[in-house]
């Protein structure tokens, strides 16, 4: 039933003003991401600029939610964005993407990223420990990371492509939320499959049950594999019909993506202008 239900969201026909509103919402929820070994301060600056103003002012599109970078590049992002930016800085940490590092160094990474100015920490869980049944270890690592994060928001990445089953995804969601996650996130983007609609649905359902039980609203971030505006709209439909209007905001829902933004922008321009513009009119992302 999970796949069937997830597929049903993609069948909603999103047209006209609904489409435009949805696309703009998707932009405001984008965590614009660059996670490459060859990342430079210059590329980060460029990404920050793009996140602040994704497209010409006349299209009335808000800034992206955040830029997502490696810990070493957080300070450059902060330099560029300054202290009061609407665009948050997210840093992956804890031995991203594998998580196969000593706890001490993982926490040190988180601490330094936060000191350098990260508003949000995207940690990875230790999938080795999870799959070996050492759930308490996973819990403890998340709780310790949350502690070291301080005011920075904590997103917990499961790498659902490695957890494989829906039961595992559901259990990981519950562990992470109870251990203090502010957001739960599907994937690093380094493993295939990354985010899928059914996996995201299972996580949204876990968030719903946690909300009913505790009154705490946890955020959701599907990441990796979401490349088209059409996909993004289907995710928004899923959020709307699973968790309701309260989750339709960047505080509680994000897309982790690098190529999605330009497709969404292209669709926005197409919806407003009536025809498609060549890719050359959009800055790289």
């Amino acid at each position, binding site marked *: 039933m999970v796949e069937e239900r997830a597929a049903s969201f993609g069948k909603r026909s999103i047209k006209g003003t609904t489409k435009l509103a949805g696309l703009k919402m998707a932009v405001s929820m984008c965590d614009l991401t660059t996670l490459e070994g060859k990342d430079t301060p210059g590329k980060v600056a460029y990404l920050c600029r793009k996140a602040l103003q994704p497209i010409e002012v006349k299209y009335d599109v808000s800034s992206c939610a955040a830029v997502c970078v490696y810990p070493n590049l957080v300070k450059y992002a902060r330099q560029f964005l300054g202290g*009061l930016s609407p665009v948050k800085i997210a840093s992956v940490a804890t031995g991203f993407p594998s998580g196969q590092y000593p706890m001490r160094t993982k926490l040190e990474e988180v601490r330094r990223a936060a000191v350098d100015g990260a508003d949000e920490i995207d940690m990875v869980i230790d999938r080795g420990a999870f799959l070996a049944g050492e759930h308490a270890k996973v819990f403890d690592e998340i709780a310790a990371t949350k*502690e070291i994060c301080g005011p920075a928001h904590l997103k917990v990445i499961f790498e659902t492509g490695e957890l494989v089953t829906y039961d595992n995804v559901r259990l990981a969601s519950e562990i992470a939320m109870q251990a203090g996650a502010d957001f739960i996130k599907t994937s690093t983007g380094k493993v295939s499959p990354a985010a899928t609609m059914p996996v995201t649905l299972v996580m949204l359902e876990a968030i719903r049950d946690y909300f009913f039980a505790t009154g705490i609203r946890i955020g959701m971030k599907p990441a990796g594999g979401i490349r088209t505006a059409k996909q993004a709209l289907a995710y928004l439909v899923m959020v709307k019909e699973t968790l309701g*209007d309260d989750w339709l905001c960047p505080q509680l829902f994000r897309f982790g993506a690098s190529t999605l933004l330009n497709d969404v922008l292209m669709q926005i321009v197409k919806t407003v202008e009536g025809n498609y513009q060549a890719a050359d009119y959009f800055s790289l992302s």
Partner: protein
Amino acid sequence: MRTKAKGFSREASEGHAVAVILSRPVVALRERRLNFGGKWNYMPAPEDSKSYPIAPRHELFIGGKFVQPHSKQYFPSINPATEEKLTEIAFAEATDVDKAVKSARRAYQNVWSKMPGRERGKYLYRIARIIQEKARELAVLESMDGGKPIKESRDVDLPLVAAHFFYYAGWADKLKYAFPGKTPEPLGVAGQIIPWNFPLLMAAWKIAPALACGNTVVLKPAETTSITAMRLAQIFLEAELPEGVVNIVTGPGDTGAAIVNHPDIDKLAFTGSTAVGKQIAQAVAGTKKKLTLELGGKAANILFEDAPIDQAIEGVIAGIYFNQGHVCCAGSRLFVQEGIYSMVVKKLRDRIQTLRVGNPLDKNTDIGAINSNAQLRKIRDLVQSGVDEGARLTQTQCDLPEKGYWFPPSFFTGVTHAHRVATEEIFGPVLGVMTFRTPEEAFERANNTPYGLSAGVWTDKGSKIFNMVSQLRAGVVWANSFNKFDPASPFGGYKESGFGREGGLQGLAAYCRLR
């Protein structure tokens, strides 16, 4: 931001528990509700219907021609979503039925029963392919005439219609291998009377196996939904099906009675209400006519504590609200194990709020129009009886269109076996929710009904599924799913839900004499 980040480390780590809790605002217990409001509304997305004009009048289809009824009388066919007249349908009397049966008999004797199976199969394949080509048009007509959402007629009805013709086309030249040790022979002329809830699909269920086995057909669609059956007649012409192999007569119950009572009918197949089914069984008693009946239901959907609840909720929703609940195998009685009862009711309440009721042609509509005013009155009466008898009614909060026949998705809690809504078939989007404690109690209560068409079991434990399935008196039991159909899978009832099976190998047996 940055200054804060610099300063946190020491203080925060001293009070970790506090930091974790304080960083996440807590909503008070009674305000923990999901908000399905209008923050991001979907614009209407209607399917184009202008491209598929409907003729102002539909004649009878007899002997490969469209002919006027003897009475020269016609009755209107109404779009239940707008109450507008779509067309006029011919009113067939006994004389017309006699003509149709004679035509079917001639076709049977001269052509169809003599034709090799592989040739009959070719016609069925051709029909299936034309149906696929015209699927969009047929789906639109089905939704306009019957009120079902285009999403369902497009994605469920039409693919299944084509699949049934393909499936039985495949059997046509393999009949002699279907029943080892036996030789199947056709029966003759089959009279087939079908309901209004799945007009084309029921026509396919009836016609495809009958033709595959070498029988000819006189079919009567339901009074309120004849349009797609007549469009199917055009497809038969296009496929060059020999004249008289399928004849379609339209009209009310009297037309059906004329088929039932016609002396030259060899086989009767009826899908519809149990009351009419009983009349047919009485009328046929003592005659040569073979009979299969697929009648009403009051299916139990049994939800155990160890089921994945969110997935089960989807199954419950699909079980009762699919096609406005106009489904004979609808899961209209929900039995929930006591420990998860309040959670299930809460989730059901949320979930029905996201069902979109309205224009059947809108691609975003989940619940379309009730098929007829008569059916709407019946649903309202039964729901009123539930309220009068003290059950608690929950309905979606939504605006219903002013014109047309509508009923919002609803469920009753506080229902017992002594409530009418828990025993009588409502045939509408209305669910009764009850509880149980042990598996024994579950199947005892599930079986405590004159019906026995279908049932559902939801649990993550395989052994429990097998145990339940062996105890449930129902023709179809779905495990961790509901309302799944496949032409290869036999469908039919226990007890007052009828006898005989449609679909699969068993569906062939209903149209053969085995020697």
